[in-house]
């Protein structure tokens, strides 16, 4: 009940909060945050890269949780929610990979590095793309397909730790050129800016997810209405 009431407030709270937080984040990241000593200004990409990555994990967690709820309750609104969140997750995964590449080029000299975290993110992208392809290629109200895709989303989500672990072992047990990647503890100011930006992007992600859910729910409703319309017409004839 309380949860429902909170969810009702989404249109009043989320857009302005996300908007303010995003503007604050841009100002903080580009102006207030100190320039990093080794990497220089380009390090400021951290403030969009890291939050995007966290937002994508957040969205995929929503997909997994909604999939579990769908399997338990067999209510199609959870299936819609899982799909809506999966799309948002994919968008943020894509943003993570792109900002990461643009950050990597000046620092590492290459756009792409087979780093465990990057590689895991890419595989995550493949898994949830496959999920969406499978779900979208079948009828919206097909319970078989919804169940199957829910199961797939749960398995895919639970696979993440294993993927990350295997890729890390794969990289570390191979001899490879050492690339300078300094990761000293962030100074306080940077930490603060990072926290703000994470908050901002998570808010945006939450807003997007609610919008995504809304589109999926509307599509379902439309399907039902069309069916009723068809039935009415055939009754008249």
């Amino acid at each position: 009940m309380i949860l429902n009431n909170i969810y009702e407030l989404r249109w009043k709270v989320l857009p302005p909060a996300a908007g303010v937080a995003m503007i604050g984040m841009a100002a903080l990241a580009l102006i207030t945050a100190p320039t990093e000593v080794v990497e220089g200004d380009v390090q400021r990409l951290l403030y969009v890269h890291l939050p995007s990555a966290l937002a994508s994990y957040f969205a995929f967690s929503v997909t997994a949780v909604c999939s579990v709820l769908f399997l338990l309750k067999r209510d199609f609104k959870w299936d819609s929610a899982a799909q809506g969140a999966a799309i948002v997750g994919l968008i943020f995964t894509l943003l993570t990979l792109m900002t990461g590449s643009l950050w990597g080029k000046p620092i590492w000299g290459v756009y792409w590095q087979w780093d465990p975290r990057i590689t895991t993110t890419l595989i995550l992208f493949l898994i949830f793309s496959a999920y969406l392809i499978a779900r979208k290629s079948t009828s919206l109200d097909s319970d078989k397909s919804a169940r199957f895709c829910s199961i797939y989303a749960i398995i895919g989500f639970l696979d993440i730790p294993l993927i990350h672990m295997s890729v890390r072992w794969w990289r570390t047990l191979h001899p490879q050129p050492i690339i300078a990647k300094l990761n000293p503890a962030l100074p306080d100011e940077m930490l603060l800016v990072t926290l703000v930006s994470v908050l901002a992007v998570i808010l945006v992600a939450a807003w997007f997810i609610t919008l995504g859910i809304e589109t999926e729910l509307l599509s379902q409703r439309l399907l039902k209405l069309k069916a009723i319309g068809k039935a009415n017409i055939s009754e008249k004839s």
Partner: protein
Amino acid sequence: MQDLAIETNRLTRRYDGLPALNRVSIQITSGSRIALLGNNGSGKTTLLTILSTLLQSSEGSATILGYDVAKKSTALRNMIGFIRHQPMLYENFSPVEDLELFAKIYRVSDAREQIRRLLTNVGIWHLRDEAIGTFSRGQKQRLMIAKALLHKPKVLLLDEPEIGLDQSGLRVLDELILMRKEEDSSPITVLAATHREERVDTWATGFVRLERGQIIETTLSENTE
């Protein structure tokens, strides 16, 4: 007040939003033989498939002998026999091999004797060691009759059981299911979809007529809603 064998309450199933079965409520008493009538696409198969536990309803509920169909319990499945449009047989097995496997699954006692009796009754005992894939449609249908009766179900769901059967095959169907003499005290309940309306009077104790997923005519007492 007789026991209810099959009861559905506002049973609904939608495909792509379109209802194939629309709020169907029926009550069938134990031991009755009900014909399910209607044109193609009227929802007969959907109703039978939901009752067989193969398909899930979109809304509403159904119980067979008091067991909720959606729960798919083992006890319920032991009591249902189902013959649907397409045969359900291992194509590269012989009838005996197929039935022996399912006798095991349904834990039929004296399986060997049962199989011999049933195959003889449906008239394909001489084909017992041939591959099912070489059978004609009518022979497969006879085998399906034997398979559906193998575990002595209390409720039989039949979807156009006459398919492919010749005159003697139809007689087999009548003798074994539709007009069979009760051997034991617990009567068998039959719900059979059929297009042969002229034969319905000879075996059915009642009928339900569906059109566009809804009941338009029935001899069953109306469900109190």
